[in-house]
């Protein structure tokens, strides 16, 4: 079985390297990096592993993205493309779309909302009457009880018309009171959900502070328990709170003293609270003047000795960070859906212009430069839309390990939307720059989506580190098995056979049988991408062990490759589905999928290549030095070429 030749020697050597890796992963804590990112990764994997009962095995997950990091293609959540609407849900949704669209076309005025930096009461009233404030609240508490997929479809309508209104609604229900839906006890739900669902009360999510953005754990707002244990006294400042100036109900995150029963030491840990403006001591600033989403109210909120009844603790005491991350994770798919809507509308506008505009004696859509823009814009939209509904569909199916996919969805959607709006303006040329065209407003509205609800920069690190942590935990199990091979021979041999495939180069075609035959070539590329991705990740972990957490240049390349690889699988799944159903758009979707897979595969190879080799290590070192020089100089270091100071 194990013939002693070059292959088996190589295998043994890599097995030894893995042992070293496993050993080092098992010991010690990460150094150097703020505990927040470490916590972010370890605590954010909050949903329990898929097989909590199996204490012998490693935590398993059926998330496609997470398994990519091991070079494994786990298809459960991607193939076939989920179809989750019951016929009743479909019928309900079809009925809801019309009036929603009509409202946004005829009653809501995005130009007014942007110019006046507010949403008029008449529009808010119309939104209340439409039930738009409680889309996912259970019907018995006054909401519409929509599933995630239904919610996504409606939010797509909002996104295609007015992102400012979208944020007002989203800050309210997607994060503002989502905590009550996810973590509230029955009394809290009964007390608070009806009035927020009807839109009588606005809700807001209050986490960010002047000194605490990405580093959420470092917040300083404090909630001190009263002596009798019946209240908490809340003090602190929150900034950039959407709906902060109009909300009646806040989900507030504050440090609370938590005593460790074993050691007797009291440490600060974050807790979450439902805070009513009526509790007193709450004031807010004037609305912030922003680049975009001007209709949405953004304000600072100040808590001055606000008395919170202890029944208003949301979730477990000291577990506020988990509450925050879960709320954000749960609402992320909404952004992908909303921005799909925005892109769809923007692409329609750009297309209408391109097919009508004459220059040089022909319509400009006959020129390659414009064709490339339109094609790229629509492929990015297709990917974004496919991922958003894939995530929503998986959430509806009851899967809980979708956090990497949700993060990818948010990163991709926000950057694709920016690209699409920007290119649309470019296609329209001077007209695109003019206010009356409406595209500049859309571009300004889109910019914030790369920043809030977890900056794309943090989310990229999150994607990489979470995936790598999963690999690491599997390797730990392998280590245990190696120490006592008899106990889990199956695991050792399966790893050995896996190694055999890996060292002989990428030959995986695992996705080919899952897709329509037309897409075989693209599926091969996607399968290879997963395999090469897994190898690269393992290589990085072997080299850097836990200190990989400091290697953000590498983590970003891995994140990019992860996004591209996952996106290939999703569009392959969707296009296959469309081909099997003979949709009128199936051929067009096939074209987009093929091109996307080719281009994405090239990008994956490039990004993975940048994680290896001396040249790239040197480039990273040099860039760090460049950055240091700039910081030292307070700006660019060199003076102008003329030397004139």
């Amino acid at each position, binding site marked *: 079985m194990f013939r002693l030749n070059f292959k088996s020697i190589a295998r043994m050597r890599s097995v030894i390297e893995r042992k070293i890796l496993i050993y080092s992963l098992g010991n010690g804590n990460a150094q150097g990096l703020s505990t927040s990112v470490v916590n972010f990764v370890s605590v954010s994997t909050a949903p329990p592993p898929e097989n909590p009962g199996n204490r012998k095995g490693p935590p398993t997950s059926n998330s496609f993205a997470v398994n990519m990091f091991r070079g494994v293609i786990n298809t459960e959540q991607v193939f076939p493309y989920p179809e989750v609407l019951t016929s009743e849900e479909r*019928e309900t949704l079809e*009925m809801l779309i*019309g*009036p929603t669209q*009509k409202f946004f076309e005829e009653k809501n005025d995005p130009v007014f909302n942007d110019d006046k930096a507010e949403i008029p009461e008449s529009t808010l009233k119309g939104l209340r*009457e439409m*039930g738009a404030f409680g889309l996912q609240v259970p019907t018995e508490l006054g909401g519409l009880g929509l599933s995630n997929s239904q919610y996504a479809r409606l939010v797509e309508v909002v996104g295609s018309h007015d992102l400012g209104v979208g944020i007002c609604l989203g800050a309210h229900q997607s994060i503002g009171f989502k905590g009550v839906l996810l973590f509230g006890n029955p009394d809290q739900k009964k007390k608070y959900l009806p009035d927020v669902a009807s839109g009588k009360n606005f809700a807001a999510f209050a986490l960010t502070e002047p000194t605490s953005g990405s580093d959420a754990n470092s917040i300083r707002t404090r909630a001190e328990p009263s002596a009798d244990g019946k209240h908490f006294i809340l003090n602190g400042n929150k900034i950039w709170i959407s709906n902060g100036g109009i909300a009646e109900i806040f989900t507030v995150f504050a440090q609370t003293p938590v005593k460790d029963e074993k050691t007797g030491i009291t440490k600060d840990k974050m807790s979450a609270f439902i805070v009513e403006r009526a509790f007193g001591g709450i004031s807010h600033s004037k609305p912030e003047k922003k680049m975009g989403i001007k209709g949405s109210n953004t304000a600072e909120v100040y808590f001055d000795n606000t008395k919170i009844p202890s029944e208003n603790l949301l979730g477990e005491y000291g577990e506020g960070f988990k509450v925050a991350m879960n709320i954000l994770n749960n609402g992320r798919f909404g952004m992908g859906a909303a921005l799909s809507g925005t892109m769809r509308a923007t692409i329609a506008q750009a297309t209408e212009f391109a097919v009508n505009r004459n220059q040089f004696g022909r319509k400009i859509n006959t020129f390659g430069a414009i064709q490339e823009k339109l094609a790229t814009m629509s492929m990015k939209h297709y990917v974004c839309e496919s991922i958003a509904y894939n995530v929503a569909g998986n959430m509806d199916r009851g899967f809980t390990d979708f956090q990497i996919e949700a993060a990818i969805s948010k990163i991709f959607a926000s950057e694709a939307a920016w690209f699409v709006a920007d290119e649309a303006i470019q296609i329209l040329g001077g007209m695109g720059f003019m206010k009356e065209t409406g595209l500049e407003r859309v571009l300004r509205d889109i910019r914030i989506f790369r920043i809030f609800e977890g900056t794309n920069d943090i989310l990229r690190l999150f994607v990489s580190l979470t995936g790598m942590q999963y690999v690491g935990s599997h390797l730990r199990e392998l280590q245990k098995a190696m120490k006592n091979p008899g106990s889990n021979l199956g695991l050792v041999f399966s790893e050995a056979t896996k190694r055999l495939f890996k060292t002989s180069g990428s030959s995986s075609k695992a996705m080919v049988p899952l897709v329509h035959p037309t897409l075989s070539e693209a599926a091969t590329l996607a399968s290879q991408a997963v395999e090469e991705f897994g190898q690269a990740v393992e290589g990085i972990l072997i080299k850097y062990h836990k200190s990989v957490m400091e290697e953000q240049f590498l983590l970003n390349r891995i994140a990019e490759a992860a996004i591209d690889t996952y996106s290939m699988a999703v569009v392959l799944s969707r296009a296959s589905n469309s081909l099997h159903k003979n949709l009128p*758009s199936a051929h067009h979707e096939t074209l987009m999928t093929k091109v996307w897979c080719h281009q994405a595969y090239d990008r994956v190879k490039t990004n993975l290549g940048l994680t290896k080799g001396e040249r790239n290590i040197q480039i990273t070192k040099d860039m760090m030095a460049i950055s240091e020089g700039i910081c030292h100089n307070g700006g660019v270091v060199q003076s102008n070429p003329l030397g004139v100071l």
Partner: protein
Amino acid sequence: MSLRVMVGVKRVVDYAVKVRVKPDKTGVITDGVKHSMNPFDEIAVEEAVRLKEKNVANEIIAVSCGPAASQETLRTALAMGMDKAIHVEIPQPQYDTMQPIHVAKCLAKLATDYKVDIIILGKQAIDDDCNQTAQMTAGLLDWPQGVYASKIEKDGDLLVVTREVDGGLETVKLKLPAVLSADLRLNEPRYATLPNIMKAKKKPLDKKTPADLGVDLAPRHQVVSIEDPPTRQAGAKVADVDELISRLKALGRI
């Protein structure tokens, strides 16, 4: 006096959609295309709901003759405030050749069976622009008609209907029962609010077949072909009347 009002609604390609002709010229592309309630029918529904709110009507019923998908349109009508709906289910192949005469016969039978006092239809559907159903229904029932209504009022036992005609406005007084058709300026339809849509799911929706109503759907017309209008030719400027005449002669127009 409390009246029973029946409103006909039709599911049509949405007004904002760019309609495309099928390559085989048998019709327009409807697969995967957005559909909604005929706009004039929305106005008719709105009028019925308002009559109920004014206590002129005590029961308002929506009807649609069409394939399974017509139920969406009926649910929208229920969400706008209709009390119940009747779906006369027509299989797709027969629906493709269905004409106003067939619909009129269905409506006439339903009006008799349900003892309806007022029938309100949209003046025409935006897909075929026939503008026939209301008139034919009135004819079959031998009821007075007030078509192109821009105002409907009750005056004792009569209906006073203001009609928009080419020359201006005409006011007619009709005895009941009567058939009306809604024109654009009759009212502005309300939005079906999302909670009302959810409530509408609980309202009754009866199903009927053309056979139940004794209506024969055999087509009276045959559509030979459907084509795009010819692309518009560019105009030409002429210097004076003489040139105009010689040009027209050359084109064989005079």
